[in-house]
């Protein structure tokens, strides 16, 4: 616990109480970060700063407002709190707005999430520059004379947050993050300059992936985009690469949100307990995985974090209902926050699956698009590799997939054995049959 931050939050609780707000939640976040970016072997950006941000949720006389400020001088804050209390009293009553029942705060796990690297300050500026340079050099070596430009970066961040509520919740979390990324532009025959990148991140700098691998992967991915073209509109199997699978799942996910359910903007509102996908569709939310990028001990309401199964063998099991919308919907709250979203990996590699499928598209990136949470319709641009006879034939671009989530998840045929660990979405590559892919 950072005592200085805790004391300031405690002071806000007391000050607000004196100003007429007995019920409130105060959160204070602090972040210290460094960003080093190189382009073409010289530093392009060096950025470093520390930020503080305070958020206060007021529940005053049955009314609610949320306030944010980074001006944390006590005199300014005192005025800010007093103004906020006055404004809150002027809006309409909302009987559903209260602090959560404290019983949901209980049962917080005592597990060490292993998300903070105590040795973050041991990494010198010189070492950080070396990581970037190593990653960039590897890209140049792997990319050869097709390369137009290479951008490489290193970031690290130390973040802390304290949350207190007037009805007894007290939470503290600290975490560190390290990332290395490389982006490579290559020259195509027709003046197009396809760009691709690779990155890795970790809570611990000693566990950060080898920068040489990241640089070489970035170059390889960029070269693989050379000569992209579109194919004739067809119904084909598709494989969505592990790191991008969340783009499609997140459209499905929006409809699980209690807010959208209440607002009648969810195609899943009446589907709990029903089959909404194939047997292969499994989605688990586990916030308590050590070193997970989405790991946390409590959620935005202060509820103790728990592992939950959201979709089991294609059957919808649970929603994301926070405290407020649970009261509006008249149901038990679950959680309004996500942790590590996991789609369990399968047994075969993407290469094996490609060989087996024969013909289809491996999607390696998305472009634009949208998903409609009310109807489940989605449409999104794709990049990738067209394969035939089990072999990659050429890259594709300017193409699109469109479907409806209530049909699409029944098409999930297999998950590959390559879960992506550098995100709070731990997804493997996912295979779908019979998808309309639009092109010429």
């Amino acid at each position, binding site marked *: 616990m950072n005592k200085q931050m805790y004391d300031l939050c405690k002071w806000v609780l007391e000050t607000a109480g004196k100003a007429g707000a007995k019920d409130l939640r105060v959160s204070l976040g602090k972040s210290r970060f460094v960003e080093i970016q190189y*382009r073409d072997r*010289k*530093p*392009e950006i060096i950025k*470093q*700063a*520390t*930020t503080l941000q305070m958020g206060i949720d007021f529940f005053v006389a049955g009314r*609610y*407002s949320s306030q*944010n*400020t*980074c001006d*944390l001088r006590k*005199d*300014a804050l005192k*005025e*800010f709190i007093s103004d*906020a209390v*006055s*404004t809150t*009293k*002027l*809006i*309409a009553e*909302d009987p559903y707005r209260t602090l959560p029942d404290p019983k949901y705060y209980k049962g917080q796990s005592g597990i060490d999430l292993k998300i903070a690297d105590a040795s973050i300050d041991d990494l010198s500026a010189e070492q950080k520059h070396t990581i970037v340079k190593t990653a960039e050099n590897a890209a140049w070596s792997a990319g050869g004379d097709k390369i*137009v430009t290479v951008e490489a970066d290193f970031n690290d961040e130390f973040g802390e947050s304290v949350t207190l509520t007037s009805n007894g919740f007290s939470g503290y979390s600290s975490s560190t993050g390290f990332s290395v990324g490389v982006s490579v*532009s290559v020259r195509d025959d027709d*003046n197009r*300059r*396809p*760009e691709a990148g690779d990155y890795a991140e970790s809570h611990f700098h000693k566990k950060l992936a080898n920068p040489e691998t990241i640089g070489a992967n970035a170059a390889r991915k960029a070269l693989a*985009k050379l000569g992209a073209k579109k194919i004739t*509109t*067809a119904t084909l199997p598709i494989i969505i690469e592990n790191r991008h699978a969340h783009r499609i799942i997140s459209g499905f996910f929006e409809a699980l949100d209690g807010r959208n359910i*209440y*607002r*009648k*903007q969810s195609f899943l509102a009446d589907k709990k307990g029903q089959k909404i996908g194939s047997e292969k569709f499994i989605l688990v939310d586990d916030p308590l995985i050590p070193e997970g990028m989405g790991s946390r001990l409590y959620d935005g309401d202060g509820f103790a974090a728990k592992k939950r199964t959201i979709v089991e063998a294609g059957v919808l099991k649970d929603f994301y209902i926070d405290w407020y919308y649970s009261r509006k919907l008249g149901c038990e709250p679950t959680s309004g926050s996500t942790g590590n979203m996991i789609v369990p990996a399968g047994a075969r590699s993407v290469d094996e699956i490609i060989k087996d499928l024969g013909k289809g598209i491996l999607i390696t990136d998305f*472009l*634009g*698009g*949208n998903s*409609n*949470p009310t*109807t489940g*319709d989605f*449409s*999104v*641009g794709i*990049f990738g590799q067209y394969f035939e006879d089990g072999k990659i034939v050429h890259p594709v*671009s*300017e193409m*699109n997939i*469109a*479907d409806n989530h209530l049909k699409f998840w029944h098409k999930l045929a297999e998950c590959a054995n390559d879960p992506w660990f550098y995100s709070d979405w731990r997804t493997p590559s996912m295979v779908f049959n019979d998808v*309309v892919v*639009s*092109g*010429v």
Partner: protein
Amino acid sequence: MDRIDRRTFLKATTAAGGAIIAAPVLFDGWLTFADTGKTGYFEKEFGITDALCKKVLGQALSKGGDFADLYFEHTISNSLGLEDKKVDRASTSVNLGVGIRTVKGDQVGFGFTQELTEKSMMAAAAMAATIADGSATPVAGKFASAKMSDYFPLMGTKPTPLAPRLSLVESTAGKCFARSSYVIKTIARFGEGRKRIMIVTSDGVKAEDLLPGGALTCMVTVEKDGRKEQFWFSRGGRRDFSYYTDDIAKEVAEGVVDGAVMLLDAVAVPAGEMPVVFAPGESGVLFHEAVGHGFEADFNRKKTSIYSTMMGQKVAEPMVTVVDDGTWPNARGSINFDDEGTPSQKTAIVENGILKSYLHDRISAKHYGLLSTGNGRRESYAHYPIPRMRNTYILPGPNKPQEIIESVKKGIYIEDVSNGQVNIGQGDFAFYVAQGRLIEDGKLTAPIKDVNIMGSGPKLLRDITMVADDLKLGWSGTSTCGKDGQLVPVDAGMPTVLVRSLTVGGTKKRGA
């Protein structure tokens, strides 16, 4: 409802670094700045004198560099929202800080602090200075306030209260329910912000401004025979509250309800390549994505844009002129000067089909030996400026809208789009059709929805074959462009335009 006739005035007290506490003013429940004067704010409220700026800039250039700049910001944003007919949620956000940048060629050192004290600013400046490693560069002897136009004058000098804003949101929601019995849910929001900025550069420029912004936004869900659809609509810009009359509330309610009801009859779109007609206004986002980003000079300086070798070449038919305009009165993307202190301007990117100019910040302008076009923009003091669009649109052409629609035998007509994205290097873009219709035998027929449109930027420009005389800006008041993790307000517009062929990402094979 309680009414508070209290007015909090600025309260002066001594802070750690000798700065003065500047409290925003609460006026009948609405937190804002006390007045609308554009200059002198940071000196009066925070003690930021020219002498202090000179000292901090000196620190930023203590190891050399071409120039350094300071970007002071104090922003107050408020919003009111409802989802059950009465406004039952309010939020306020206050942001305060200074960004300090040292530039050496195309290299940038950047630090920022949320404490406007000399000690904190000197530390951030020392951080920015690390990009260079030579001997100190001198700072200008004095700072001259930039002469500028005012493209978004504020009507009143005094703040207006909360109450009429509550009425606005509630009456808009009421108008939605009155408009159609299919409406089952209305969510309405009014957001308004005021951003005070001051830019001081080591080469002697000083620029101060107060930027207003806001929007009235509404989303509805409609249901008919078990089928549900949603739609949203908004109006806003760089306006003060006097803009939000009952007529605007009516326009928003009609726009959102009629849009949603139309979707109840929407049909699936055939997939594949076909001619596309863009309606005037909102659909200009297409050009923001497909054309504008590729012309931002940083992508060209770095040679990552497909347009980096096309300057002076023919990129479109002669009736196509594309501009990026920071001067359109009250438009969301308008600025009096950019975030580097360069006066705003209307920049012709493509003129009569010829590529004439990229969109420059100071770094790219120096790289190309040109003057900045006033496109150096940033999200906040926590970000360094990069070339960004303002209000981007195609100028009117020789055709009539009806003649363009009648020229298409089978295609689609796009009225509103969202979620545009471009792959700069490859030139590929995609955007999502929020509202549109089929064109069959030269007539607008069934509504369409939820479909993505794909294309190649350079090909799109070449494929514009007709341009009408009915230019409109979008005016949604909510258009926000993201680039390199920074969000800035923009607007886009266009006249009715025919594009010969684009890929439509439908769910049906053609003829199915």
